[in-house]
């Protein structure tokens, strides 16, 4: 709550500085001999406003991180905290309960031990809130006053503001690099911790998966961390079953839409495919679990397969394939559209039918683009989470039978991190190792696919 107030405060102070500086610049302009100053008044205003808002925002960001820690430290130093349990879960529960009562988000405590801590918390929160507001005001005033005093008739406010704007734009574009770096660093860091407990060889080449989050974290059983069944399940569902559905249907949809359909039909079908692409994956997952999986099981019973499971790789794969159809279709659409019209005309002029032209000229010419599109589709399918979580099951089976339950990398990441295990346990850390593998594979697929597309585009330009 407090950071939000500080943010509003920062923006209000910035506005005040903006107005004050503009008024001052107007007086310069009025008093100057020829009615001209070095920059328009509005740039003076922005100069002061930036000097107020940027330092204050930096401070608020920092403060919202350190204030909670300062508050808990001062509470722990209070006499009421001396009879807390020494470590662990209970202590955290009591503290968080007292905090939520003190901040007003809960009405009363369940745990009597938290009662004594409510008052120290309330005092600490109000004390540090006051400090935060005061510090914000002081920083804003100092920075604003400094900037305000620099405004003179010959002050080149515009170039300075523009320089600041360029810097801010550059910083914004660096957020993408920071995010990538954040992903890589956090995954690598936790993966290394995991490999300190379980050998990478056991992980990458073992065929038994069944981590026990309740086992002793100091002596993990490496033979239970073999990820081959997960990789197999991921590939079987995402790259085999889903693609058997998505590639022919997506490709044929794209061909029909670009080569045969009249404009009216196209006008209606394209948005429908976009809707299909926009349906959230959790809805597909529910559809797979509620409708498709039971239908498949019943069909299997009907033909005499009695051991079909109600959670099957087939159900998850089929629905995932449907989800990917619009993606494959739009990629194929782009690549076919990139083939020069002359090639199509030439083939038709030789007497080939439309379908012969498509099969023998357009598709082969567009093949690199289509293959790249399929690679992107695979990378999307293997990273898909909700459908497999809801429909594919948790059993790590190393089998080729699509009617059996299979588990995937994404399913296990969710299962390991939403369980009760502690953060130092290899079972929990294995989720990061799996995430790292997933990240590298999708990265590789995308990298290759984008290069192929680029080269293919150049070939026809």
């Amino acid at each position, binding site marked *: *709550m407090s950071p939000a107030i500080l943010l509003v405060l920062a923006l209000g102070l910035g506005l005040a500085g903006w107005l004050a500086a503009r008024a001052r610049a107007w007086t310069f302009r009025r008093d100057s001999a020829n009615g001209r100053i070095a920059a328009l008044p509005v740039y003076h205003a922005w100069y002061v406003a930036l000097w107020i808002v940027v330092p204050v925002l930096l401070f608020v960001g920092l403060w919202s*991180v350190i204030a*909670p820690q300062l508050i808990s430290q001062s509470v722990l130093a209070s006499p009421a905290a001396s009879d807390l349990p020494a470590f662990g879960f209970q202590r955290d529960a009591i503290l*968080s309960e007292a*905090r939520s009562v003190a901040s007003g*988000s809960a009405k009363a405590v369940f745990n009597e031990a938290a009662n004594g801590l409510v008052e120290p918390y309330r005092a600490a929160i109000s004390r540090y809130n006051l400090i935060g507001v005061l510090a914000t005001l002081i920083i804003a005033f100092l920075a604003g006053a400094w900037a305000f005093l620099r405004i003179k008739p010959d002050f080149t406010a*515009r170039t300075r503001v523009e320089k600041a704007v360029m810097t801010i*734009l550059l910083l*914004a*574009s660096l957020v*993408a*690099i920071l*995010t*990538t770096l*954040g*992903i890589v660093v*956090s995954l690598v860091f*936790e993966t290394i911790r995991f490999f300190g407990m379980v050998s990478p060889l056991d992980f990458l080449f073992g065929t038994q998966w069944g981590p026990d989050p309740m086992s002793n974290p100091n002596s993990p059983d490496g033979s239970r961390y073999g990820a081959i069944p997960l990789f197999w399940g991921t590939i079987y569902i995402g790259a085999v079953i889903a693609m058997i559905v998505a590639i022919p*249907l997506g490709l*044929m*949809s794209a061909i*029909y*839409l670009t080569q045969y359909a009249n404009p009216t039909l196209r006008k209606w079908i394209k*948005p*429908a*495919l*976009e*809707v*299909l692409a926009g*349906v*959230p*994956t*959790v*809805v597909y*997952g*529910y*559809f797979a*679990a509620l*409708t498709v999986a039971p239908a498949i099981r019943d069909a299997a019973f009907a033909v005499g397969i009695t051991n079909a499971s109600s959670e099957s790789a087939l159900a998850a794969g089929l629905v995932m394939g*449907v989800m990917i159809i619009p993606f494959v279709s739009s990629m194929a659409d782009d690549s076919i559209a990139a083939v020069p019209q002359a090639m199509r005309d030439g083939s038709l002029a030789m007497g080939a*039918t439309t379908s*012969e032209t*498509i*099969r023998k000229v357009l598709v082969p010419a567009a093949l690199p683009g289509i293959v790249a599109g399929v690679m*992107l589709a695979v990378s999307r399918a293997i*990273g898909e*989470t*909700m459908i497999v*979580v*809801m429909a594919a099951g948790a059993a790590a089976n190393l089998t080729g039978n699509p009617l059996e339950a299979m588990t995937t990398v*994404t399913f296990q*990441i*969710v299962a390991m*991190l*939403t369980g009760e295990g502690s953060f130092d346990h290899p079972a929990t850390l294995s989720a*990061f190792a799996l995430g790292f593998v*997933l*990240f590298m594979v999708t990265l590789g697929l*995308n990298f290759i696919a*984008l290069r192929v597309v680029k080269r293919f585009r150049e070939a026809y330009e």
Partner: protein
Amino acid sequence: MSDRLAPTRTAEFEARLKKRYAAERRFKMAGLGAILFSVGVLAFLLVTMGFNGIGGFQRAEMNVPIDFTQAGLSGDPAVLAQPDAVQTLEAQGLPSIVDFYAEQKLGAEGAAHISASAWRLVADRIIDDPAILRGTATFSLPASAKLAAGLNGEGSPEMRALATSLAQQGKLETKLDLGFLERADATDPQQVGIWGALKGSMLTMIVTLLMAFPIGVMAALYLEEYAAKNRWTDLIEVSINNLAAVPSIIFGLLGLAVFLWIFPNMRSAPLIGGMTLALMTMPVIVISGRNAIKAVPPSIRDGALAVGASPVQVVFHHVLPLALPGILTGTIIGMARALGETAPLLMIGMRAFVATPPQDFTSPATVLPVQIFLWSDEIDRGFVERTSAAIIVLLVFLLLMNGLAIYLRNRFEKKW
């Protein structure tokens, strides 16, 4: 000479041509079939959800008349205006009053299957309008989950029999339950509502928009208008393109490892969820923003520069306003994707049971797709229809957002 005059359309040729035309027709039919299949699946999915979801907006309720003149509740308006009025009414014996009149009207068997917290509904009505204490009022109270299942022809045979007999006497009926849009999560499918999750989604989306939109637009402007062609720019471009294709669950791992490490007390807060989704949405906004900026013709820039505008003025006074509709379209599409996203939010702990709508950006919350996932995991059959109803609410929001994007595109898109 005679060779040249030989007829080209021999019987052999005609047969081959016929075969080729047949192949042509088959190919065309296959294409049409593929499209019809995709559209058919979409229609089937929507119809299934709609059909199930109608039941989710209804619930089994029983009419109970309560004669308050006999009940002995003190209807002092000053007491009822207090914030703890519900507790006061409970202390005055409202639950047993409700039970008593329910038994009179429905019989012991039926009264046993009024939802345990039904008296709270009565209490809320009394607090809203203390005047009803002066007479007899009829309340439509929710049945228990078991009885509701019985009315749907599910559950144990006894329940089905009881539900059938109560329904035949006109005591139990299925009524429209608009309260579904106003309540939050609960353990009883008869009592659940979607408002808590919806509010959580809105708070999360506000954070996402406030972070992803400015950063995304600024990054797009920098890359498209100012960035020099060098290794750094290439690196930024490569990382944006890759981030757009990274599986969403990886962003959840990032949020878990970084944001929850910085803010350990904010598990399942909309602030953290919004920040995680913002990182995911930002590349989408950058990519669509760059395309929109690229579409602004260079003559606009040249004209502005020619009359003395600085590079920053060119961009902020001319290029950005012209590109804005395109950027907004891309932003809305990216936000729609974020609204439907589940996996990264599961990672950062937004899967807790949250029975009250979130108050602010830092209180525990859940979001619509996660709520759908949680309900789909419930064993109680009553949740099936509720889940579909929640899906309908989510899809309506997504359709509205996509419709807005299409409208913006058609209304403001300029062909130069």
